[in-house]
């Protein structure tokens, strides 16, 4: 181990890794927000609560049915995605013709309900979730100690992010999706069931949030308020990146995670606020966001 600017390399790279992990959650969540906003014209305030539900689903699956982490990685997003589809059918579908702000208010209300109910049953204290056996331990890279699980989270998030990018930007399904975002009436006239696409898009975006939640469970404790703390930061990430581009959302998410991690090393007092400060600067310099198109 050695030192950089008087900081031990293990501390520097350790925080960088945490930055990458947070960055992958930012990327997964802002990706979902962007896809949902494109199709539904709603900013999904429930996104943080759905991330939390993903973590809780993994926790409960293990506690009640003994389903392990690897299965939970698939099952939990599906469960939460189905809950999302029900939410879209019961609540959100009535709002598409109204002003954006009603969507924000309704999903904010849903977030309060989900978080409040969870807190009533499980309290505010975090519940522990074990790192899966295959990923316990770690290896010494010479300049830092790399826990296996954390390396897995970063790698798997990257795969999911780029998989999503590929599906949306390079496949026929993605082309339908982009076309329906641009002009739903026309796409419908071509015989594509746009309302069903909207429903499934919401389920998919919510599933991504839940997937991030499952991955977060072994790193952070599973707690009811884990989502509301995150969602406000993710909003800032979305403002910085702009919601126009999938790749933009991924890059902004990871980039800001890294910046936040580095701030924790060099100027810890500002680590909570650095992303908001960057947002303010971006608003001054490039009001449309780094990857946004001018409205």
């Amino acid at each position: 181990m050695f030192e950089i600017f008087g900081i031990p390399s293990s501390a520097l790279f350790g925080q960088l890794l945490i930055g990458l992990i947070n960055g992958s959650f930012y990327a997964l969540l802002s990706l979902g927000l962007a896809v949902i906003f494109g199709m539904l014209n709603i900013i999904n305030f429930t996104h943080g609560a759905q991330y939390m539900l993903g973590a809780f689903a993994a926790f409960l699956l293990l506690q009640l049915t003994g389903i392990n982490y690897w299965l939970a990685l698939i099952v939990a997003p599906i469960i939460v995605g189905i809950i999302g589809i029900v939410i879209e059918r019961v609540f959100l579908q009535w709002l598409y013709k109204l002003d954006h702000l009603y969507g924000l208010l309704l999903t904010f209300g849903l977030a309060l309900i989900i978080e409040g109910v969870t807190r009533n049953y499980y309290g505010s204290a975090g519940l522990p979730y074990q790192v899966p056996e295959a990923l316990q331990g770690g290896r010494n890279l010479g300049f830092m100690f790399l826990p296996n699980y954390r390396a897995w989270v970063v790698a798997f998030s990257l795969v999911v992010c780029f998989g999503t990018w590929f599906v949306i930007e390079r496949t026929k399904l993605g082309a339908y999706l982009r076309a329906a975002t641009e002009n739903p009436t026309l796409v419908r006239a071509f015989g594509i069931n746009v309302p069903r696409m909207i429903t499934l898009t919401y389920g998919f975006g919510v599933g991504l949030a839940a997937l991030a939640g499952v991955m977060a469970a072994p790193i952070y404790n599973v707690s009811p308020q884990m989502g509301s703390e995150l969602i406000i930061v993710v909003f800032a990430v979305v403002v910085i990146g702009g919601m126009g581009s999938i790749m933009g959302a991924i890059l902004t998410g990871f980039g800001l995670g890294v910046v936040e991690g580095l701030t924790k090393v060099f100027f810890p007092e500002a680590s909570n606020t650095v992303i908001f400060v960057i947002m303010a600067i971006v608003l001054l310099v490039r009001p449309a966001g780094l990857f946004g198109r001018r409205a």
Partner: protein
Amino acid sequence: MEGVIAQATEKTTAAVRNWGEPVGFVVMLAALVVAPFFVYPLFLMQALCFALFASAFNLLIGYVGLLSFGHALYFGWASYITAYVAKTWGLTPELAILTGVLAAGVLGLVAGSLAIRRQGIYFAMVTLALAQMMYFFALQAKFTGGEDGIQGVPRGKLFGLISLASSEAMYIFVVAVFLAAFLLIYRIIHSPFGEVLKAIRENEARAISLGYKTERYKLAAFVLSAGLAGLAGGTKAIVMQIASLTDVNWPMSGEVVLMTLVGGLGTIFGPAVGAFIIVTMQFSLAQIGEWVSVIQGGIFVTCVLLFRRGVVGEIAHLLRIRL
């Protein structure tokens, strides 16, 4: 954006009779005179502070169509500044509150000039994020007392002469502050300036093409709203004799949205009525703890889906008057 909030409010047509506002005002005055004989005064004063807070918030969402999701920033920081200067510098309450209002106005100027650079849904996200940033500053700054807040704020003597220690004096002071701010908001809405704000709400592009520098109007409205929210926060700090993190955190921003939505967006009396409904609910349901937030969430959902006019907006619609 254009015209959508107008669906929730009453259109000003020739058919709309205008006896609503004077009658509403008389009813409100009567209620303020009679209420302290029946209701616990501290509760009333707190509810009045929230009524003022919600009315200030409504100036933005109801009349300019801008949803600020970070109004706790101005409410909470004004209450910290007021509490600090009243306790540490020993300023009289009116000067302490004025300091809080100025601080909120300056914060509103900074946050507002950033937020108006983006439209629609981004505006809400920017205001929320900036408020969260200032929440972390409040958490870390020395003078705010962190988790403890600033406690034991003296009510002091108004103008250095009249002690506000008794509930009666304090109540009269709070009512005076509330009425003055309420009339100011009423005046703003019905001034030529207010008409331009409504034009921006209905169709910003058209307002621009008519030659109005809409950004300046939006910023001016934002600063006014922030300052008035600060007036509510500062007054609350003097009344409750405490400034704490609760008032500056994001759930407070959500609560003021809820109050305004329940009462009626874009109605003059709605936010005050909504504030009394929500504060009453919180008081009477205090013993069920966390379920309060579940119920609040439920009210949000119900209001958005079924009840977008709010209580006062519904009444105004039924009677075909303006309230």
